[in-house]
């Protein structure tokens, strides 16, 4: 096989990664071998022929991948309807692939260590300020994509990072509106009353979202996903910790120190541990430990008020995770499962 054919076959193998997992498991080897044979034969006829083969694949590829995902989705729905609960694998304990881990982790990296490093040395020259803004905007614009893929794939664990950010932003807007419109006051209120209102609004927003998800069929899979593993919602909100420790008061901390950088790194590692953990207890422990450690390091660096923010965030994050500790419902009194397609 020519080097050009070998090269395009390698690229083709990358494209195959975007097919649904079950499809890949069944056909990847064959598809690669078939494409390699087609590419080798085309390369023997000349470069133009090889380019034609590649263009044909690229032309069909998006539609074929979308069709394959839709097909898998329909099949999963049918399987869910026909299989008995006792034959299903234990939910929530599936191991994530490295790609899925990365998909759930990069926002923690962006809002955490990357954000901290981009801010130093302070003050930032104009070009670095513009560059960091552009990077941030480009990355944030990927969030709707993450939400969309999460919805499409029935909310796998990694996708809760994106949902958590949406929930935090939504709660933030509501809290801000309450302060500005209802109370007609700014941020001069004492910290704890503000915090109590923030927690209340957050809990309300979360409740409204879950009720809406339960009632509205396109979001029903989200409701079912959260019900089977509440820690996933906590993990989404854990991104708030990543953002908190990425926000630095430059005037007071003009120099990058371990007390500034380390907390955001600890939260990142906590998120990694969460995504790779196999049990719910391990996941809760990963978030709790890293949050406590991050607060401890910030406090050791002389920023005691982070303890207050961290406590509020801790409550917000662990409201859903604590629901996981409730005793399971009596199966004899349980309602029949809600059918997605009914």
């Amino acid at each position, binding site marked *: 096989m020519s080097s050009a054919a070998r090269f395009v076959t390698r690229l083709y193998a990358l494209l195959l990664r975007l097919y649904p997992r079950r*499809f890949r498991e*069944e*056909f990847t080897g*064959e*598809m690669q*071998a*078939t*494409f390699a*044979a*087609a590419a080798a034969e085309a390369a023997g006829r000349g470069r133009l022929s090889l380019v034609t083969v590649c263009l*044909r*694949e690229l*032309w*069909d*590829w998006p539609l*074929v*991948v979308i*069709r*394959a995902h839709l*097909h898998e989705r329909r099949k999963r729905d049918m399987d869910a309807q026909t299989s008995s609960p006792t034959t299903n694998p234990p939910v929530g304990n599936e191991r994530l692939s490295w790609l899925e881990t990365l998909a759930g982790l990069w926002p923690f990296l962006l809002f955490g260590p990357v954000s901290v490093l981009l801010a130093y040395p302070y003050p930032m020259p104009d070009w670095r300020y513009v560059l960091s803004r552009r990077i941030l905007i480009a990355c944030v614009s990927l969030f709707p994509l993450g939400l969309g893929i999460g919805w499409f794939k029935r909310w796998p664990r990694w996708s809760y990072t994106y949902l958590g950010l949406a929930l935090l932003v939504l709660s933030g807007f509501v809290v801000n509106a309450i302060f500005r419109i209802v109370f007609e006051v700014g941020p001069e209120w004492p910290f704890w009353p503000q915090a109590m209102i923030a927690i209340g609004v957050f809990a309300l927003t979360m409740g409204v979202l879950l009720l809406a998800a339960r009632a509205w069929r396109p979001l029903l899979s989200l409701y079912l996903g959260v019900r089977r593993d509440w820690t996933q919602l906590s993990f989404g909100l854990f991104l708030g910790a990543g953002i908190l420790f990425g926000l630095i008061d430059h005037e007071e901390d003009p120099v990058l120190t371990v007390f500034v950088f380390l907390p955001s790194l600890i939260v990142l590692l906590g998120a990694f541990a969460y995504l790779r953990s196999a049990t719910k207890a391990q996941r809760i422990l990963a978030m709790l430990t890293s949050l406590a450690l991050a607060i401890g390091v910030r406090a050791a660096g002389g920023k005691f008020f982070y303890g207050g923010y961290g406590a509020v965030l801790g409550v917000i994050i662990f409201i859903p995770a604590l629901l996981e500790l409730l005793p399971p419902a009596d199966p004899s009194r349980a309602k029949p499962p809600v059918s997605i397609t009914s």
Partner: protein
Amino acid sequence: MAPSLDLPSNLPLTEATFFILLSLSPGPKHGYAIMKDVQALSEDRVVLSTGTLYGALKRLLEQGWVKRANDPESNGTARERKAYALTNEGRRVLKAETARLQKLVKAAQLRAVEERT
């Protein structure tokens, strides 16, 4: 006994599906051989990409029109390849589609003759 198949609701077939079934009608073939055969059968009009081919094969496997088979060209030393063969159901669908197309052609030919006379 093969499960009953509702032929009318499965017809007409897409062009790609028809040519894939037609390509498998003489005997089992592996993926690349199907691609080449479809191209030849359609006189270079239908050129399948691997994505389209295996997407169609997956559906045909699930419908039970196609099954996996031993690769007739495998000589034991080459890398193992998977081949596909028509099932009885697949053959019935292919026959029904061919009969449907023949009826269409017959109707068109009849009208052409009437117009000439």
